[in-house]
């Protein structure tokens, strides 16, 4: 029985695989194929870009969102052609990666806002906070929703006498990096409590120690934890706040205006900065009057010196397309377009990518 049975199953499986492989498109000509790995947050936008770009040019680009660290590991080991990152490498980290295959160009693709979202009983919209107050809430020094510093900012709202539950991302994430970078710029007390630079993809949350803070995995986890815990506050990527109809705090920016997070108030944030040529900059707490303050770029990391002509050409063409035509796709998915100044800097960076010492763009 076995002698008939085992081969039958094996044959069944082999046949299944062959049929399936046959179903798959059988392209004889070797189309250019690129792979990238890294940040998960911009993945929906990238996926849409790659699908569109394939229809336009026939170039296949695969992107696996294992996280920024995994992306940087993969590019440093020569497994992928580019990496996605939403947290900047420190100069020492960058040097370590560059030691492997040479200089890396960091090109911004889009910008994201991190709305501060809340679930406060009796308050469905219009809650205002300043950066200082926000930092104190996450420091655990402001513990009640009717704290005088909060009511002073919201004289029209009837805030409850309830303890604040703070929700943070428990997994390591670029979202946390941007959020804490903002708090570190606003509040010296925050920096001294957290230690180091006061920001990062994972930090030790002060509110955890006194039991008023909980962590949730992923943006989706924060959104559901917020819904299920009355009188809580949290932070998520802009798309999650909008798609889940979460109320967002109007946050006071550097010029004193209270700004609602949106695609438009994210794009202008870059205008409040003198952008550096390498575009390695955190754009939180912008000096622009209409800018939302908790905003950050997300980048693609590419080797400046490409070793394969066809692939180098494909990368450069794609990057050029992404920072121009691709930008139109961003708002529909609640990502912010790059400002014109940022696009100008990005163009220079794309042009700096070389093959055998020659700029690939336009060659």
């Amino acid at each position, binding site marked *: 029985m076995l002698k008939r049975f085992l081969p039958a199953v094996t044959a069944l499986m082999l046949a299944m695989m062959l049929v399936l492989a046959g179903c798959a498109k059988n392209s004889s000509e070797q189309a250019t194929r690129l792979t990238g790995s890294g940040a*998960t947050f911009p993945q929906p936008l990238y996926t849409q870009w790659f699908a569109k770009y394939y229809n336009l040019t026939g170039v296949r680009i695969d992107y696996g969102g*294992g*996280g*920024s*660290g*995994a992306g*940087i*590991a993969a590019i*440093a080991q020569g497994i992928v052609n580019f990496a996605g990152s939403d*947290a900047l*490498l420190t100069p020492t*980290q960058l040097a*370590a990666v560059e030691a492997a295959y040479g200089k890396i160009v960091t090109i911004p693709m889009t910008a994201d806002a991190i709305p501060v979202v809340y679930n406060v009983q009796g308050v469905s919209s219009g809650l205002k906070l300043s950066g200082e107050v926000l930092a104190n809430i996450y420091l655990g020094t402001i513990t009640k929703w009717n704290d005088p510093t909060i009511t002073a900012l919201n004289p029209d709202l009837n805030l409850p006498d309830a303890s604040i*539950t703070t929700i943070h991302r*428990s*997994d*390591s*994430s*670029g979202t946390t990096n941007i959020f804490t970078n903002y708090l570190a710029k606003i509040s010296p007390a925050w920096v001294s409590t*957290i*230690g*180091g*630079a006061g920001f*990062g*993809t*994972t*930090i*030790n949350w002060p509110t*955890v*120690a006194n*039991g*008023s*803070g*909980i*962590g*949730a*995995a992923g943006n989706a*986890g924060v959104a*559901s*934890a917020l819904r*299920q*815990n009355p009188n809580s506050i949290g932070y998520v990527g802009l798309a999650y706040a909008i798609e889940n109809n979460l109320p967002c705090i109007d946050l006071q920016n550097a010029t004193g205006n209270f700004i609602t997070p949106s695609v438009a108030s994210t794009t202008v944030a870059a205008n409040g900065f003198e952008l550096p040529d390498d575009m390695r900059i955190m754009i939180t707490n912008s000096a622009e009057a209409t800018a939302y303050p908790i905003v950050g770029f997300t980048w693609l990391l590419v080797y400046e010196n490409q070793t394969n002509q066809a692939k180098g050409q494909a990368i450069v063409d794609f990057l050029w397309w992404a920072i121009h035509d691709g930008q139109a796709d961003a708002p529909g998915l609640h990502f912010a377009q790059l400002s014109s100044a940022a696009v100008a800097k990005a163009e220079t960076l794309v042009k700096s990518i070389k093959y055998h010492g020659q700029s690939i763009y336009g060659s």
Partner: protein
Amino acid sequence: MALNRRNRKASRLGDAVFSRLSLVASLAIIFILVNILVILIMQAWPTLSEFGASFLWTSDWNTMTDEYGALPAIYGTVVSSLLAILIAVPVSFGAAVFLTEIAPLWLRSTASFIIEMLAAIPSIIIGMWGVFVLVPIVRDPIQKWLGNAFGWMPIFQGNQLGFGFLAAGIMLALMIIPIITSMSRDVLRAVPQSQREAMLALGATRWETISKAVLPFGRSGLVSAVILGLGRALGETMVVAMVIGNVYSIRFSLFSPGSTIPSKIAGEFGETLPGTLQMSSLLGLALILFAITLIVNIIARLLVWRMSAVKMGRL
């Protein structure tokens, strides 16, 4: 005659080839395991040499100061898995007894289909069910009731957030109940019918038959079933990460949030740069989980061994 000898020679060769092949396959398992271990030790080495044994009992996880300790993750892993076992074992054994001794035949095969389908559902989806359905139930009726009735016990005190050890324990229990049930059902089914008949002939009730003749006969198999379930609970990643609340500290209340080793690894691995002390510490955590699984298995072996020794002694 000559033909016969050739046949015998061929068959001896067949035996040799067959047993060698099976030996190689078995060695492959050990080889893979040792290789995983070697790679883990290599990658965790910086942490092991930096913190030494103190990695086991310190509770910091600070990327600013580069100090890492494993205790909260060890504690969370042990507590959530024990809780899951406490819930799952009585329920699964009851279900297994029901399925072998009492239930109609069609129900038995339906049960095995349910188990297989459950195994195929990605844990992220099961986790979503946990977040949307189970966590609210845990917060409102369960934690409220436990807090009111047993609030004097430290393990049932504190904020009733829903997310935490209790939710993780229940989710894990739900995931391992099918595993333990199906394995113990197979074990019980293998108990010879004569065992049951002998007891029944002596005038024993159904339960007496089960408890005195069936369960003792299947002891070692039942222990392996529990161990298999425990192994799954120790290593489960996404489901736990989604419901445990992910706070890296040690709290004694089952209502409070915590972390487990796999949830910590899954949460930070992707964003951590290669070659850092943080990455090395994450793999150090994986190494500790390895050790925990090892200890659990050794205890189980000893348990089975003692049980059979006792049984032999009595006979």
